[in-house]
């Protein structure tokens, strides 16, 4: 960091604080070192508090895909048909997954291993997100630097390094698409601005590549391909069209679309879906505008006017025709060419109305106000100041940032998940606001200090703003110049520094600056520092407490301060992986699908990739049906085990009973015999004695509360804070095979289908036969080694042997030979 000497020197110049920062950024590399150091601190919370483990649900899937990639290579990866999930449908992973993250981690792993650094795939996966968040803060620095200079850039990067919203996705172990995508997003924006400022085709090409990486990484790429056209349109409308704008936009659309179509999961969607139409429309518009500018250059003004009227009248007709065709095409598709998630962005109520699957994910809910404060904290207050700073003066770059923040605020208001897109924008804005205000305050302090000795003439107001404007215009002009010669001038600049730096000069410039009272500026700086400190404290707290919990391991503090670990999920998954057959199918609600395939390596029916609504609805229906119907559904799906998550014993709120209404809704959406009102008593969801009989008899209730009453004698559910409604019941079609230590995961096995003979034995039997049976039972009781549990089975067997001797062979298979022999002996005695 800056030693005080340097800092003092810097304050003798104009920007005291901004300078300390910018001084450091003078070595581009220093920022790269600076920001990761922030992040390292944050990685550690997760690894220190917990362990190097992958979080949540989706990351487990990504981890599994990466494992496959590293084991089988890239070609097998593209062709991978996964039969361990969505049984019996399977899933084409290569064509339905955004491969950016997986390929990135796979490449890192491959490089490390070819350098003989044998890190496991898991380690690489765990640490991919933190590495990329370091890159992201570097990209933020570059973006903000392009917009408002290095001081703002560094402030923004520092803010981004800590912003809780992004930390939640970039802690070690959060191995999700967003981890890589946010970097790609910011970097694409940076390259776009860079191209806009320089007009260089080189950067335009890089921009297309960055966009390609973004398309590879995350479905959120549609945000880029809509935001950039919006900005281009804005520039054109406000008369800021230039050749730089053309170079920034046209190659991006052409190259970007071509590259995007290479990603299997996007494919022809890049030209077919409505999300991309805006870019093509603007592409046409920018060409028309470019053409008009060209014509304007050639023709005389009079001729030009004539041409305009001619073209506009013809063009309008053509446009109307084309638009009509387009609208007709789009309207012919049921979703109007928009995917469900995009539609729910445009119409926030869409999902809850039509797609319960999307609405059932808590990430897709609109955020509450506290969550804004939690996620971006003081940035929320700094953003407006940043927007104002962007308007003084408004350049192409700053208008883009303003557009970015406005749209992302809207999107984050629709879905909590998209708070992540807002975070970088908020950081950029706040970085600008902070650095501008610091520069204003330090400048006025500086001036006052000199003002005591020097001139008291204050030339405020328009004079200063005019210089700023002039400065900025010049800045733009300079940027248009060739950048290739940047290096030599860097060196020459250092030499000239001495010539320029004369004290007499300062007075001149200071005279032109906006000046605030001395005390006020000192006070304001203190407040800003306080604000920053508060932000840091909040971020550290959020990172340590709220966002580094891996959700697969839960912890709680006991009264004496000891840490208690709830590791039930892994307990259950480990049990499944070691104590069931490799090909057994496990049914659970889709939340646990990815984890089951990744950790237990068992085939699941549905998972977090919710591509087939009907299949999920089938599982939902089974869960909300009575036992027998559920057994039939599961049996038809070849399911052997059913896994439910139950938090009632320890008070774990996100368990299956709390998700149950979604299962009913999703199930009912496809199978109308499941009706939501059947599960609600007067519109209220309850599980106590007031609950409806449908609720109390459904499979989910039974599997969750089976034998629960035996824990404390009255069956008090700590999540719902109530006693359960139906306490003592038996399962007829399922049997409990495993329950974890804290009862958080319970696994049941489907009982094998009833023996077909059972129906025959129900026929009225002769008294003699009954007596015989009793005798046999007594006999069997006398034989050691046979437990009462076996008795029913044995009884049945003996009966059968008596009545249907031909089935002997069948039973030999079913019983172990010892047992059969004993029966044989019994029979002999009887006869």
């Amino acid at each position: 960091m800056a030693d005080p000497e340097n800092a003092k020197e810097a304050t003798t110049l104009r920007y005291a604080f901004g300078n300390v920062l910018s001084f450091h950024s003078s070595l581009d590399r220093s920022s790269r070192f600076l920001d990761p150091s922030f992040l390292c601190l944050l990685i550690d919370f997760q690894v220190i508090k917990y362990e190097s483990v992958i979080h949540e649900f989706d990351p487990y899937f990504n981890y599994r895909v990466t494992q496959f990639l590293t084991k089988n290579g890239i070609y097998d990866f593209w062709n991978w048909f996964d039969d361990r999930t969505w049984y019996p449908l399977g899933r084409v992973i290569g064509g339905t997954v955004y491969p950016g993250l997986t390929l990135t981690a796979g490449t890192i792993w491959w490089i490390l291993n070819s350098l003989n650094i044998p890190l496991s795939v898991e380690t690489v996966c765990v640490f991919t997100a933190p590495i990329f968040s370091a890159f992201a803060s570097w990209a933020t620095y570059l973006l903000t630097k392009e917009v408002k200079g290095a001081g703002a850039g560094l402030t923004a990067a520092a803010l981004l390094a800590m912003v809780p919203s992004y930390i939640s996705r970039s802690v070690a172990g959060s191995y999700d698409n967003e981890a890589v995508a946010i970097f790609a997003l910011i970097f694409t924006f940076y390259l776009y601005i860079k191209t806009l400022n320089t007009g260089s085709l080189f950067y335009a090409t890089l921009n297309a590549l960055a966009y390609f990486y973004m398309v590879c990484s995350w479905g959120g790429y549609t945000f880029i391909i809509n935001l950039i056209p919006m900005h281009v349109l804005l520039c054109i409308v406000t008369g800021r069209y230039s050749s730089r704008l053309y170079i920034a936009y046209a190659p991006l659309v052409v190259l970007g679309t071509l590259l995007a179509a290479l990603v299997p999961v996007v494919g022809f969607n890049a030209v077919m879906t409505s999300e991309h139409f805006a870019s093509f429309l603007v592409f046409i518009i920018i060409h028309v505008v470019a053409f008009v500018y060209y014509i304007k250059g050639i023709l005389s003004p009079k001729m030009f006017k004539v041409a305009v009227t001619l073209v506009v009248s013809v063009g309008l007709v053509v446009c109307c025709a084309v638009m009509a065709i387009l609208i007709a095409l789009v309207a012919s598709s049921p979703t109007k060419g928009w995917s469900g998630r995009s539609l729910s962005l445009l119409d926030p109520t869409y999902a809850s109305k039509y797609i319960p699957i999307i609405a059932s994910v808590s990430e897709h809910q609109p955020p509450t106000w506290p969550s804004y404060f939690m996620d971006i904290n003081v940035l929320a207050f700094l953003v407006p100041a940043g927007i104002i700073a962007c308007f003084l003066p408004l350049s192409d770059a700053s208008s883009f940032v303003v557009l970015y923040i406005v749209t992302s605020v809207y999107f984050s208001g629709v879905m909590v998940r998209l708070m992540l897109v807002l975070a970088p924008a908020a950081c950029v804005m706040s970085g600008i606001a902070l650095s501008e205000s610091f520069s204003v305050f330090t400048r006025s302090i500086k001036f006052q200090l000199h003002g005591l000795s020097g001139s008291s003439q204050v030339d405020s107001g328009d004079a200063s703003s005019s210089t700023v404007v002039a400065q900025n215009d010049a800045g733009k002009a300079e940027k248009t110049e060739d950048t290739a010669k940047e290096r030599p001038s860097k060196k020459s600049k250092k030499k000239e520094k001495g010539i320029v730096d004369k004290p007499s000069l300062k007075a001149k410039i200071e005279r032109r600056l906006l000046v605030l009272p001395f005390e006020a500026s000192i006070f304001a700086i203190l407040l800003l520092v306080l604000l920053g400190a508060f932000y840091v404290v909040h971020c550290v707290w959020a990172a340590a407490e709220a966002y580094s919990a891996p959700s697969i391991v839960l912890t709680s503090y006991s009264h004496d301060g000891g840490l208690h670990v709830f590791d039930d999920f892994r307990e259950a998954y480990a049990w499944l992986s070691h104590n069931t057959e490799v090909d057994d199918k496990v049914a659970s609600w889709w939340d646990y699908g990815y984890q089951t395939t990744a950790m237990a390596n068992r085939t699941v029916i549905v998972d977090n990739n919710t591509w087939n609504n009907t299949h999920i609805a089938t599982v939902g229906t089974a869960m909300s049906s009575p036992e027998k119907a559920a057994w039939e559904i599961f049996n038809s799906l070849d399911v052997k085990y059913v896994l439910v998550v139950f938090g009632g014993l320890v008070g774990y709120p996100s368990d299956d009973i709390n998700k149950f209404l979604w299962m009913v809704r999703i199930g009912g959406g496809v199978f109308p015999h499941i009706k939501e009102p059947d599960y609600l008593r007067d519109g209220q969801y309850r599980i106590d004695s007031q609950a409806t009989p449908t609720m109390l008899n459904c499979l989910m209730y039974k599997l969750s509360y089976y034998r629960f009453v035996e824990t404390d004698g009255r069956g008090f559910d700590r999540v719902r804070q109530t006693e359960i409604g139906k306490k003592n019941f038996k399962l007829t079609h399922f049997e409990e095979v495993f329950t974890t230590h804290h009862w958080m995961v319970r696994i049941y096995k489907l009982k094998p289908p009833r023996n077909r003979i059972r129906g025959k034995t129900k026929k009225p039997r002769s008294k003699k036969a009954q007596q015989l049976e009793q005798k046999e039972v007594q006999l069997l009781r006398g034989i050691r080694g046979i437990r009462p549990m076996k008795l029913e089975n044995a009884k049945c067997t003996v009966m059968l042997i008596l009545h249907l001797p031909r089935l002997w062979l069948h039973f030999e298979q079913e019983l172990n030979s010892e047992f059969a022999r004993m029966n044989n002996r019994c029979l002999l005695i009887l006869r």
Partner: protein
Amino acid sequence: MGFWLRFNLLVFTIAILSTPVLSDLILSKVDRRIDLTSQIVRITSTLKVENAGSGLVSEVLLAFPELQAKKFGILMATTNEEKAKRKVLELVSLLKLPIQKECPALTVYSVSLSKALGEGDTMSLDVLAVFTHTLKPFPEKITQADIQLVLFQDSAYYLSPYAVKFQSLSIKLPDARIESYTKIENTKIHGSEIKYGPYENLHPFSYSPLVVHFEINQPFAVAQELVREIEVSHWGNVQVTEHYNIVHEGAKSEVNFLGQLEYQARPHIRGSSAIRHFVAKLPPRAHSIYYRDEIGNVSTSHLWADSKKTELLIEPRYPMFGGWRTAFIIGYSLPLQDFLFELEGKRFLNISFSSPINDLVIDNLVVKVVLPEGSRDLSVSTPFPVKQRQESKISHLDVVGRPVIVLEKADVVPEHNQYFQIHYSFNKLSMLREPFLISGFFFLFVACIVYVHVDLSISKSSASYLAKLQWDEVRATIQQVESIINQCLATHEKIEASLRDLSRIGDVQACKTTRKTADGLLKEHSKELKPLLAFLQSSPAAANICLSLNSIAEKMVKLYMRHPNIMVEELVAKERELQERWMAKHSIIVDCYEKKLGREIENRVAPQQQKVVALRQEVEDLLEYIDEI
């Protein structure tokens, strides 16, 4: 029950077929003790061997039923002739012994004696046989609430190809219920110990089946596979990583799972045969201990360490009932000096062979010893025969890979946990390879940074020199601009003077002529200015300065440096404005004079005058400022 019969039958045939005359040895006394307190069955027999015939005998045969022989953990014969020295005798498995042809159900081992027995000589022989997987749970499936019962079968008489004069047998059982046991003559039971015998003068291959059915609540932990990796680093560390794959081979838990409830409430009564935890006795000063499985850390473990031992208690993720499986990894580091020694220029590693976990049967043990890169002349000495091979492993910062010795052994019991040695030679300089690699890389990095940041060029074509030239050019141009502007200002002054004359004398004509000349001059000046301004704007130096400044982001410097260009533009603009104002003022005054509107002049000129003064001031400021540059 069923297989007892079968077994009886088999032994019966053996007894009939075998002929007593195999050799002249007789066993004068056999004392057998069978320990059944854990899943590992240990049979200790003390034999008193007597040579009754003539001629030297140098080998003693030991016979075991083939079923048992398949499950040997260890078979060891020792003599205690000299009391201080117990000598382990060589055991050879004889597969093609004559008696085997007659009764294939027997496996016969021969003990070759170090000293042949002469006629009439006696010696005593201790035979320790350890069996795994011998106790059969019966019934095979139990619920969690049940106790675990097992069957043990053997012969009440010592099975031997020799005649046995006098023998006794005692079976030690765990302190628990005995369901049943075979009663033949001379059977006594004392608490948990069953005694058979003494029996006298039995023929060779005498056999009497013996079955004990008893309760055992010891868990039957069997590691189906254990891979131990011992990695030696000469930087002071021995890293041991053990991959366990464990199954509970006791009575299988019935599918009907009675829940955690019983188990948690009364763990000692219910499910007492479940494996709750393992205790690993690690060597003293073990550190950096971890316990994890393939899906992450397992948090249920405890560690006690003192100067003599380190005890690690690990609980599997779930209590293991019969038939359940689990897999986990434990790892620990040991101080090097406790295990690596130097002997005659060679080094040798002395470390225990088997797992540190108590009472664990290991079906297949693989020990991999990874030696540092550059080790040569490897040799292994083990206290018992093992399969061995060599491979190599490439790990952190390796170039050619580290030599790995792989030792494999099946059916390992705790008795195998003995020290074994690996001798190798190693050059100390090889230790420095890795530090060299790291520091080399670091220096390369530093060198790159230095190279990028230092401009070593002195030639005139160097970038900085060119930049300086350009800058000089720019400065010259700026000076030219300044001089032109000064000329303009001089013209303005002339106009002012003529205006003053006008107000004094009222000579409108003279004033108009001065205005014309002034106009001409100004036009010329602006013509001269044009190329200069164009040069300034296009000059890469001026622009570059700004750009580079921008990227280097020193704002105040940027501001200063940018000024030549901006200021000049501003200056020119201001000057133009000034010109216009002057002209406006001039024409107003002249107009007024022409129209003789004496009073109005001052009213109309006043605002113009003010602006002129202000502009003039600004222009002068700017000029002064540019001068500074």
